């Protein structure tokens, strides 16, 4: 497939435009998905932490801690939640889901700090931790850790899908552009060929009967103009020759 020199810049422009759209859309997608998913997971975790906190009051005050453990074991099965721990009002750990033990970083942290924090637990991973007080904190606290790796994986998937879509559109677009360029260049090629043929025919004194002269588009008009100027040129040449002979 020959791409005409005339349209090479146009094609380059199309590539650049697609690239720009692809990159900017991906960046926007990463930002949007990252922000929204992170926020969504954080809000969900806060909601779960509050649910556990609310339902823990009765258990902590009246029942065996195995019931509390059973409760958090069910919540930790939710995708994205990596760990849960519950402390009493003195900060002692009453129930948790850590294996093989409570990480030192969490042991040394202040359980009554309820703001969302980012944690890097060596050998375990990176987490965003949210907290909720139990009975306004007088009965203890609940903390939930979300795996940021899981959120990153979700983002990667969303961005990957976006990139896949844009790449597909880009490839289809490139082939379509090449096809359109060739389609647009075809009359010009015909016209060029006609002009060359016209020149040769005139040289050899052959009369014109090309189909292109019958066309009603710009190529036909240009062909008729070329023929007109060629005939005009011939008339001028023969007048000049007659005049020179008279002299």
């Amino acid at each position, binding site marked *: 497939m020959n791409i005409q020199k005339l349209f090479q810049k146009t094609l380059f422009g199309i590539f650049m435009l697609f690239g720009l759209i692809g990159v900017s859309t991906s960046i926007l997608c990463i930002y949007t998905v990252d922000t929204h998913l992170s926020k969504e997971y954080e809000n969900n975790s806060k909601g779960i932490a509050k649910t556990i906190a609310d339902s823990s009051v009765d258990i902590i005050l009246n029942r065996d*801690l*195995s019931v509390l453990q059973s409760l958090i074991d069910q919540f930790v099965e939710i995708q994205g939640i990596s760990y849960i721990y519950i402390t009493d009002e003195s900060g002692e750990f009453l129930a948790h889901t*850590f294996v*093989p*033990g409570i990480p030192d970083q969490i042991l040394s942290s202040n359980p009554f700090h309820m703001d969302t924090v980012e944690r890097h637990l060596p050998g375990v991973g990176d987490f965003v931790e949210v907290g909720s007080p139990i009975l306004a904190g007088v009965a203890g606290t609940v903390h939930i850790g979300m795996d940021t790796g899981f959120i990153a994986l979700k983002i990667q998937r969303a961005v990957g899908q976006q990139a896949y879509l844009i790449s597909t559109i880009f490839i289809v677009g490139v082939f379509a552009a090449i096809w359109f360029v060739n389609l647009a260049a075809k009359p010009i090629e015909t016209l060029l060929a006609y002009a060359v043929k016209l020149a040769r025919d005139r040289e050899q004194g052959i009369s014109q009967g090309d189909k292109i002269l019958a066309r009603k588009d710009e190529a036909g008009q240009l062909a008729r103009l070329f023929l007109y100027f060629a005939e005009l040129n011939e008339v001028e040449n023969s007048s000049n020759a007659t005049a020179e002979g008279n002299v």
Partner: protein
Amino acid sequence: MCAMSRRTLLRSGLGGYLLAPWLSSSVIAAQAGRNNPAGENIPDTGAVAAGLTSGEIVLGMSAAFSGPSRGLGIELYRGATAYFTEINQRGGVRGRDVVLKTYDDGYQPDPCVENTMTLMLQDRVFTLFGYVGTPTVARILPILKKFQDQKTYLFFPFTGAQPQREPPYGEFAFNLRASYLQETAGLVDNFMALNRRRIAVFYQADAYGRSGWAGVRKAAKAHGEMIAGEATYKRGTKFSGSMRMQVEILQKAKPEAVICIGSYAACAAFLRDAVDLGLRVPIANLSFVGSENLLKMVKQGRSDSRRYTDLLVNSQVVPSYHDTSIAAVREYRELIRQHNPQAPRELLKEEYTPFPYSFVSLEGFLNAKLMVELLQRLGDHPQRSDLESAAFSIKNFDLGIGEKISFAASRRQGLQRVYYTIVEDDRFITLDNWEQRFS
């Protein structure tokens, strides 16, 4: 039975239950007859008692028959079956055979919940019996409350946890064995008496582990101490798994004794790694561990197994099966030898070689013996609604182990005594002198 067909049957069972008030008694009887192959034996007495025919009383059991804790379910089943078989051969309970309908839950809560629904709504068993495990039992207690008008109780589960011993679910269960609180308190008290005050806990990261952890914490607090250190493992961990990290965590706490709240595969792995890494302190296990299976794993392929077991102490809730001076032990040994019961073949997914005798099968045997006594007290026309009053009628009853059993509304645990055992000559014997062994 495949999961799909069980689900379908479960739905039909649930539908039947929900629609029961609008169905005529004949429709319900026909439904019962379809579900029960022996339906034609249902006595023509009007109302049909669930799990009951003129020839059978069906009890429902969900336990671990597969996975790393399968030894517990299989041994408990064997002990119970030895006694039920004997009773059935002697003519059953007032002419009815005691039939144990069993399902495998692999010691996992969700399958246990599904099995319980099947047993209650599809199989319509007379009552539930011999469940295994805290995380499993803790999850099915709300089902008993939800269907409390059916008067289905859970008898003698193989767990010492508190949820089935206290409100709001305690009223739906009857326990035979001592609790984990009693077992852990006994271990802590004995270690404290030896001036081993820094007690660490190695436990299963679930409701069972937490129950034992809470027991140790409570007992240590009574002595003015805290738990010195703790490490956990995931339920289902195999003996081949490494417990190196757990041992290292506990070593940092410099414990003077370690109490393990787990099942045999993980606890055997911990014992192996603890000894290999130089943690030379007494290591205790609760009765749930399955002592014989633990010992078998620790001994496997080792000529020097003594160095792994000389600081081992296991609490038990039944007396030693070696002590033939106890009448119930003699009876247990005789019936196990005579009937040699095996686990239900259709539930066995992995090979398992049963022990001739074990603490777990002795407990299953005692559970069955008390269950039969209770069924006898229901008379010729047993009704679920009479189960509670029949249990409460048991006062100062002797199972043959020298400890009297009584039940009441405020007393839903039959036995209170905790025994301690150590390994000598590759078998568990009763520990008489803590000072001599561990000082």
